[in-house]
């Protein structure tokens, strides 16, 4: 380490040149672009929603955050109890037709960017519940980024699926789902997003309120 520090100092003096300088740069500098760096940071800092639907919830997220499987290794150990603070939802179990609007609302309340994993046979396809009460596949009412098969999937399978999701985030997080589900205009941003300007009514009300207090 000491030697490297000395060499860096030498380089700054202009002592390192030519081929030697190129090799030094190759060793020390990583080249990337901003989008890739952002995707890398996002994929390793995911906040799952504390949310369970049925028996799959025992495998994920309950088992996943225990010391044995330890989702913290992949940077997703902070489970959030509010959809406003979460950016990933795991549908762990069958979705009944009475629960589907609730799930959809939770998903809509999450801030962009957000991801959804459909875990297990039931939430992906209805599973064994081919009847009047269960939605036959959660992607009928919300966009799903990833399906994990199993009944229920092992925690290892969920971890594998999670690493797949991380790769997806590092690549192209959109994948054109908004066009497929006709979901343009449903984005919610924390701040500074392209749709963060207030609506005409809200701006009007804001001006009226300012006049009222004499600001």
């Amino acid at each position: 380490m000491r030697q490297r520090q000395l060499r860096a100092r030498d380089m700054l003096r202009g002592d390192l040149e030519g081929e030697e300088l190129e090799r030094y740069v190759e060793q020390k500098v990583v080249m990337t672009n901003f989008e890739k760096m952002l995707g890398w940071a996002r994929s390793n800092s995911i906040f799952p929603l504390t949310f369970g639907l049925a028996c799959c919830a025992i495998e994920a997220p309950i088992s996943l955050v225990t010391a044995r499987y330890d989702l913290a290794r992949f940077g997703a150990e902070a489970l959030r109890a509010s959809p406003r603070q979460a950016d990933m939802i795991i549908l762990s179990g069958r979705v009944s037709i009475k629960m589907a609007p609730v799930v959809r609302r939770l998903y809509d309340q999450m801030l962009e960017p957000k991801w959804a994993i459909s875990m297990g046979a039931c939430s992906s396809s209805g599973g064994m519940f081919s009847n009047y009460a269960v939605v036959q596949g959660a992607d009928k009412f919300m966009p799903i980024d990833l399906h994990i098969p199993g009944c229920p999937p092992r925690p290892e399978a969920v971890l594998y699926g999670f690493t797949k999701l991380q790769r997806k985030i590092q690549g192209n997080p959109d994948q054109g789902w908004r066009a497929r589900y006709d979901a343009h205009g449903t984005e919610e941003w924390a701040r500074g997003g392209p749709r963060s300007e207030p609506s005409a009514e809200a701006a009007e009300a804001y001006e009226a309120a300012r006049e009222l207090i004499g600001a």
Partner: protein
Amino acid sequence: MPDAPGLELIRGEIEAAHPGAVVDTGFAQERAVLSIDPMHVLAVLGWLREAPGQGYSFLSSLHAADYLPAEPRFAVHYELLNRDRVERIRVKALLADPGEDALPEIDSCVELFPTAEFQEREVFDFFGIVFRGHPDLRRILLPEDYVGWPQRRDFPIGGEPVTFTYNERNYG
């Protein structure tokens, strides 16, 4: 549980008080069953509860069944319990299907047994049997905007059909 002569005795006494109330008696799954005309359901339940020597004062369950294609098609089951003698009796009100879009109707027994309120709502929810005089008859388990009565036998199973084509291709 009343034995066979005891059940006939009960039938005779009810017939004396309310002629035409009891349609049939019998035993099913080790339970004495009193099949009745739905017009007299409150009279029979009240009699079993209040008449001296009966004392079936506890409604342990209320549920319904669809016996399609039998006639009458529906039955509402009242499982009564005498808690002193620990005796049970089933009262089965046979309900005909009014046909078309009309719903079968029966008197509500919430006045007699307040515990029946939610159970009657559940029966209404799944079978579409209307309980006359129920204080708050709406769906209880299914979504409020659900269409249809899913526990009826002629209700489509729904979902996606399981075809087993994979096995056919490989082993058929």
